[in-house]
């Protein structure tokens, strides 16, 4: 520890700290533009010049380490003179267009110019003008306003893992740009808007819609992934104007994924459902709540009366709040059915009874940046949970080695030390060989139930390389992603992952969708009640609800055709049902098959709680009242329960519901017999589908957020073959194909993609053009 003095204040600071950090900790503000606590030090704006005793010239506080006995003066005449000089230079080329600049009112340059600028400029010459760049649908540029702090450039290099922005040219001619006009392709790009201290980079969707002083800040939590990112929802006159990150070092630090930042655009879009709808003789009619609720009650009661409670099923998205999920399962179970699920894309439920209390990381989010070795199984963590991808990148920059077993060669923001990119069917074998190789290296004798691991064949070079990565380092992690949980043999992948994790003494993490952890804890599952309570009887999991046995459906913020494993089957089941009641934020696909559609409030319009992958409960309040006739989900479910005669749902606030849920004792799953590994049948050499849900198709809100839909991350519907395969099949990119899986056929363009392994064809899921197809299985293709 060192003793220093800033403005006469005696401070004890850590060695190695910069003057600006020491001042910040003592509550002394030093003006700055290029310095940012999460970025490397550039010291190029010179705004933080301060006087230091016995140093001839003022020094930049951001790049000057503290020394014993140092005396710093942030308010002296010499300091003020230096800072005023710098400000004069910064303003030489900066346009005076504050009245038409979106940054006005929250501009660091504007604020500091008030304190340090002159009232009149001495600069007589012409100002510099820089052509704007089109860097995509999310960020607007006004490069003439740029003061060359290079925060955006450093963000790209250090945080985003991209290097598309740079500073080209020299002196007067220097400019920030992409040189060749490449769209900035990062799932975290919106953070550059927050970092830009001036109005050079601003939000495109928010452009010219509000001034910061008109906005009211409402703390909230993002529903889109299992990180539970903290948000500031900024509101004006009951409308969400924009969303910014709320700093929380343990979860999202100061960052926000683009999905969380821009999805709000959908909330006030034209597709919002404004009033309850009922279908009368095939025609949709807007009605008041009373009539709609009567119709919903009659329809559900009638179908249950005719076919029995087991013919009633509820499907929910993973974006439901814990409170909504809890009431929904109480309603369904109160009606005598256990057919409730939120895992619409999953197929393999054989290991449901041995599942943990909820799928989660098994460690804190912060721990991820401290791992030395990690294995990803079926995960595109960069795009699915962008801020967890960022934590792994931090670990990688500190020397961690990361390996992956994936059906597509995803480009990550970290380098993979080893990888096996194989078809989905081969993933189980590959993982088994890695498990065997790991056990052998760690000198662990295979337990009896895993002896069969040796029957899948000796580990190859790639599998040994992965095992070598996993056996190195001290802190390790195994992570199962969405492509593992939706795998047809997910039980094997989970069993093997748990075994590998046990051998290398690492937590075995799962990365659920959205509020998936909350859905498990709330009991939105066929086999478990709230807080892990086991059920005497198990209901049908989602994948089994579409066989025609279910005559009545209650859909909560979910679109089964787009959101389930096999869109065509889901559509037929919905069409064949006697009664479908949809609780829906938007006028979506429910209009094709439902009988009653009730306007459901999104997370910005309801009180509620999300549980992130760490198991952290985060409650939030409604940012705005529900739009038009929409109502918070827990209120809709309470009224439905009352009308259907189900007890226990008449709670009068989201907080009361949460309290009721939390008063239930957590039941940790009972120990079960060890899991036995049975070697999978050798995968037949057929053309196999690889399906991924892009981050901008993942739920009902983001798929309607138009700016996100125009980014490069939204895949084009096509059948993507490895380039060599495409040539071998004699297909030209762009030619139309008939793609058949089982009895489902769609038409798609052929395309080349070198991320696809041989023997597979990648067809993006959850797009209107591809949703009819099942997520996995054999594909046949033919010419049109």
């Amino acid at each position, binding site marked *: 520890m060192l003793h220093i003095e800033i403005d006469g204040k005696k401070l004890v600071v850590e060695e190695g700290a910069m003057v600006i950090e020491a001042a910040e900790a003592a509550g002394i503000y030093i003006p700055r533009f290029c310095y940012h606590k999460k970025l490397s030090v550039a010291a190029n704006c010179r705004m933080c010049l301060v006087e230091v005793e016995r140093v001839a010239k003022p020094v930049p506080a951001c790049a000057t380490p503290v020394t014993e006995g140092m005396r710093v003066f942030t308010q002296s005449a010499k300091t003020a003179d230096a800072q005023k000089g710098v400000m004069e230079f910064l303003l030489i080329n900066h346009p005076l267009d504050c009245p038409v600049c979106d940054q006005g009112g929250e501009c660091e340059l504007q604020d500091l110019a008030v304190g340090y600028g002159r009232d009149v400029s001495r600069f007589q010459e012409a100002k510099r003008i820089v052509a704007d760049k089109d860097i995509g649908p999310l960020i607007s540029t006004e490069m003439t306003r740029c003061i060359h702090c290079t925060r955006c450039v450093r963000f790209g290099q250090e945080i985003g893992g991209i290097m598309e922005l740079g500073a080209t040219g*020299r002196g007067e001619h220097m400019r920030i740009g992409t040189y060749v006009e490449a769209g900035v392709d990062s799932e975290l790009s919106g953070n550059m808007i927050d970092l830009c201290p001036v109005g050079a980079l601003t939000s495109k969707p928010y452009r010219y819609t509000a001034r910061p002083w008109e906005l009211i800040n409402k703390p909230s939590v993002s529903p889109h992934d299992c990180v539970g990112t903290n948000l500031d929802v900024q509101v004006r006159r009951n409308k969400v104007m924009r969303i910014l990150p709320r700093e929380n070092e343990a979860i999202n630090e100061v960052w926000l994924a683009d999905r969380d930042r821009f999805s709000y655009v959908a909330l006030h879009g034209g597709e919002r459902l404004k009033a309850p709808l009922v279908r009368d003789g095939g025609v949709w009619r807007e009605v008041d709540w009373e009539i709609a609720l009567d119709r919903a009650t009659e329809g559900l009661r009638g179908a249950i009366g005719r076919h029995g409670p087991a013919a009633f099923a509820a499907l929910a998205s993973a974006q439901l709040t814990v409170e909504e999920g809890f009431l929904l399962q109480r309603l369904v179970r109160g009606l005598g059915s256990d057919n409730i699920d939120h895992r619409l894309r999953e197929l393999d439920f054989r290991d449901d009874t041995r599942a943990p209390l909820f799928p989660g990381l098994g460690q804190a989010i912060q721990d991820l940046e401290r791992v030395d070795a990690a294995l990803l199984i079926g995960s595109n963590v960069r795009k699915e949970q962008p801020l967890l991808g960022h934590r792994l990148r931090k670990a990688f920059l500190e020397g961690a080695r990361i390996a992956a077993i994936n059906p597509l060669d995803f480009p990550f923001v970290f380098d993979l030390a080893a990888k096996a990119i194989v078809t989905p069917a081969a993933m189980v074998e590959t993982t088994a060989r890695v498990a065997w190789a790991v056990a052998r290296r760690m000198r662990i004798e295979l337990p009896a139930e895993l002896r069969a691991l040796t029957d899948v064949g000796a580990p190859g070079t790639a599998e040994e390389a992965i095992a070598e990565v996993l056996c190195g380092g001290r802190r390790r992690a195994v992570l199962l992603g969405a492509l593992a949980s939706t795998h047809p043999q997910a039980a094997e992948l989970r069993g093997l992952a748990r075994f590998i994790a046990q051998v290398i003494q690492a937590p075995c993490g799962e990365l659920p969708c959205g509020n998936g952890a909350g859905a498990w804890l709330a009991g939105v599952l066929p086999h478990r009640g709230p807080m892990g309570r086991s059920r005497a009887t198990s209901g049908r999991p989602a994948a089994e609800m579409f066989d025609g046995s279910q005559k009545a459906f209650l859909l909560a913020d979910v679109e089964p055709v787009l959101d389930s494993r096999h869109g065509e089957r889901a559509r037929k089941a919905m069409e064949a049902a006697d009664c479908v009641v949809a609780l829906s934020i938007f006028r979506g696909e429910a209009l094709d098959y439902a009988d009653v559609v009730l306007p459901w409030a999104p997370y910005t319009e309801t009180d509620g709680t999300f549980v992130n992958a760490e198991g952290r409960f985060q409650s939030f309040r409604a940012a705005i009242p529900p739009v038009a006739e929409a109502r918070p989900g827990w209120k809709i479910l309470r009224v439905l329960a009352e009308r259907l005669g189900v007890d226990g749902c008449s709670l009068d606030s989201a907080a009361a519901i949460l309290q009721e849920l939390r008063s239930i004792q957590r039941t940790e799953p009972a120990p079960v017999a060890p899991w036995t590994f049975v070697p999978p049948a050798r995968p037949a050499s057929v053309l196999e589908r690889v399906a991924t849900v892009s981050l901008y198709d993942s739920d009902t809100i983001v798929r309607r957020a138009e700016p996100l839909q125009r980014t490069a991350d939204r895949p084009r519907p096509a059948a993507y073959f490895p380039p060599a395969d495409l040539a071998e099949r004699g297909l030209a990119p762009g030619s139309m194909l008939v793609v058949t899986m089982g009895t489902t056929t769609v038409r798609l363009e052929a395309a080349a993609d070198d991320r696809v392994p041989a023997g597979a064809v990648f067809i993006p899921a959850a797009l209107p053009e591809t949703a009819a197809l099942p997520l996995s299985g054999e594909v046949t293709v033919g010419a049109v």
Partner: protein
Amino acid sequence: MLSEESRAKIDQEIAKYPPEHKQSAVMAALHIAQDEHGWLSVSLMDYVAGLLDMRPIQVYEVASFYTMYDLKPVGRHKISLCTNISCLLRGSDDIASHLKKRLGIGFGETTPDGRFTLKEVECLAACGGAPMFMIDKTYYENLTPGRVDEILDKLE
């Protein structure tokens, strides 16, 4: 993209630095690439980026900073006129206007016959002989309009 000879020269440059600092060879590599092609196209810079494990933008940053790199095709002879402080004080403005008038082009332009390209460059470290210019790789110092004419007349 580059001849084997150029590749070998670049490899020699790379060998001067520790393997993890391959990118230190970027300036030399760009000179070698420019010597072969006459100028640095985007695809040539991307190629150099690939050789040195750099992102293309990092190479563009270097190439656009130094005036000795040409990002557009140049004529048979490149006149690099220094207009920095010493040359400015010794009359580089007159040399510039004489050159522009004689050649009928401005800075950064090439004569229609492809004979000369005129560039304004930063200090070439010959302040003692200011004003000066460099044609291709030869320095000419203590310039006057008359001397400029003499020099240019001798060039094809």
